[in-house]
């Protein structure tokens, strides 16, 4: 039998349906892979007993002929999703040993469709970071290394555990969340596929909140088709999240292989940065050529407010975070540090429980919302956000179906290499992805090639609101042209 961990989700689904192997065998193969890859630190909690019992249940359902679309497929879950009875920490000390008494809507839909929980995946603390170095469980290793080097690189973030685990074949797919690029940037750094759907497509209920007007859940997967399969189960209206949209979820997989002939693809001139590595520039043109060969029409477009997206984000996101994270007070759950009075208890708990990056963002958020500064910072940023969204709307009105950009301004970097002196250095990682969150649009990152050092690079496609299908069709064209990439195993 071939190594069960090397299958795509689509191939595993077929193998399970054909009874070539059982979910228990598939799950055990992944549990062994996880055990052998602990050096990557991708999982912060392994749930082998639960995984096997869910796999047995899936096998029974398959035998009975009432298998759901993901029956028996072992997945990893970012530790930002509340999982009933399984510790959920957002990789923050402040949640301590929090064991939810409820299940997030997105994960409950995966279990409804038969998926198997392998364990919880590492991420940047409260999803604040672009390298997975802010996790209280320590950094995650990228399965990719530079040619001829033993240095461990970051997998990107905040969904670094999800990306690393999928790339290292520890799980068949993973849930992730994206507030400024946290699905697409790690996907690009690890040669996996990641899609952030339109804001409102997936329920945020039961996901630890970072910046509520930007947060969206989505999958990280081994192929474009796998991502389509996972998103179909994750998406859908939820009465418990008033921002989730009540429109039907299409069969995303049906969009795979659909012709892209005649589609108009925008190339935004503002994404051509000074000092951008030549390899990324080259990859971007290659991507355009692949889409052109498939019959798409390439047009130059302008998104004039692009450069303001990241600074506006660093007002809006911390402001919302400072409000959302007010709930961690040492009273109702999580860590408590004693104090002489209730204020000291709050202050000591939060000083001890939050890491440096989280403190920084909560403080900036508190400042920009404080009396006298609200108009100058927060209100202005929300106006700039309107302009950013309008840039995209103007493009789409002119008949553009999707926009092609690089996913990241560089390939993966080393642990400890960035952001040490100036936090802004790390923030620049999200320069190509953050606009999409600000405008609430869907964006997919697809592996497209490697740099001179052998590290993967990705391309991003940005779509119209709720038109994830076009992104899957175009993403498939890129995947077919570029091929799939697997790291050489060293762990």
């Amino acid at each position, binding site marked *: 039998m071939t190594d069960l961990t090397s299958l795509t989700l689509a191939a595993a689904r077929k193998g399970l349906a054909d009874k070539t192997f059982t979910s228990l065998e598939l799950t055990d193969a992944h549990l062994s892979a996880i055990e052998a890859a602990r050096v990557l630190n991708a999982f912060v909690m392994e749930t082998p007993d639960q995984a096997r019992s869910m796999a047995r249940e899936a096998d029974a359902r398959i035998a009975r002929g009432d298998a759901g679309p993901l029956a028996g497929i072992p997945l990893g879950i970012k530790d930002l999703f509340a999982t009933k009875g399984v510790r959920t920490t957002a990789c923050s000390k402040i949640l301590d040993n929090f064991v939810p008494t409820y299940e997030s809507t997105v994960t409950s839909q995966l279990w409804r469709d038969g998926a198997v929980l392998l364990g919880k995946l590492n991420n940047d603390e409260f999803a604040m970071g672009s390298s997975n170095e802010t996790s209280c469980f320590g950094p995650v290793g990228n399965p990719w290394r530079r040619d001829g080097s033993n240095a461990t690189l970051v997998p990107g973030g905040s969904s670094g555990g999800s990306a690393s685990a999928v790339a290292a074949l520890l799980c068949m797919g993973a849930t992730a969340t994206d507030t400024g690029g946290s699905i697409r940037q790690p996907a690009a750094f690890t040669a996996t596929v990641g899609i952030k759907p339109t804001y409102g497509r997936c329920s945020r209920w039961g996901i630890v909140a970072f910046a509520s007007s930007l947060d969206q859940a989505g999958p990280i997967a081994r192929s474009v088709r796998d991502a389509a399969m996972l998103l179909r189960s994750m998406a859908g209206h939820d009465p418990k999240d008033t921002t989730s949209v009540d429109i039907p979820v299409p069969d995303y997989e049906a969009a795979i292989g659909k012709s892209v002939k005649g589609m108009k693809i925008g190339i935004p001139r503002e994404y051509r940065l000074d000092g951008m590595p030549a390899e990324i520039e080259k990859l971007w043109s290659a991507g355009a050529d692949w889409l052109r060969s498939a019959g798409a029409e390439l047009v130059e477009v302008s998104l004039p407010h692009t450069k303001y997206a990241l600074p506006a984000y660093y007002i809006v996101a911390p402001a919302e975070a400072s409000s959302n994270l007010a709930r961690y007070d040492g009273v109702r759950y*999580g860590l408590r540090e004693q104090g002489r009075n209730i204020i000291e208890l709050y202050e000591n708990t939060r000083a001890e429980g939050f890491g440096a990056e989280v403190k920084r963002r909560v403080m900036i958020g508190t400042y920009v919302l404080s009396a006298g500064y609200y108009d*100058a910072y927060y209100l202005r940023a*929300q106006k*700039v956000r309107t302009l950013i969204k309008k840039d995209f709307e103007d493009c789409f009105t002119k008949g553009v179906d999707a926009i092609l950009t690089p996913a990241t301004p560089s390939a993966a970097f080393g642990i400890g290499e960035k952001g040490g002196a100036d*936090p802004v250095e790390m923030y620049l990682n999200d320069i190509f992805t953050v606009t999409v969150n600000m405008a609430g649009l869907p964006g997919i990152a697809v592996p497209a090639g490697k740099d001179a050092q052998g590290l993967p690079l990705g391309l991003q496609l940005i779509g119209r609101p709720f038109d994830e299908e076009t992104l899957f069709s175009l993403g498939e064209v890129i995947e077919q042209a570029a091929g799939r990439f697997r790291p050489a195993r060293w762990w």
Partner: protein
Amino acid sequence: MSVDATTVRRIAHLARIAVSEDEVPHLQGELNAMLAFVEQLSEVNVEGVEPMTSVTPMQMKKRQDVVTDGGIADDIVANAPATEGHFFQVPKVVE
């Protein structure tokens, strides 16, 4: 705009995060780096632009004003660091 040490202490208190004196200069530097970065927004002409309130063009659904949940006090206090029965325990608040 930039913040001085007094403002850093004030923000930390508003954010309910204890900050020691030797952390202040470092935090001040980082916060000022972020504020310098967002400063470029002042060059954008936002005259007559509506601030964004909802990124998705949709009518927010309203629920019936009825009780849909409850009777789960055990669950609510299950993760609390200090409880007595179904009550959260905190240091004395009212003298």
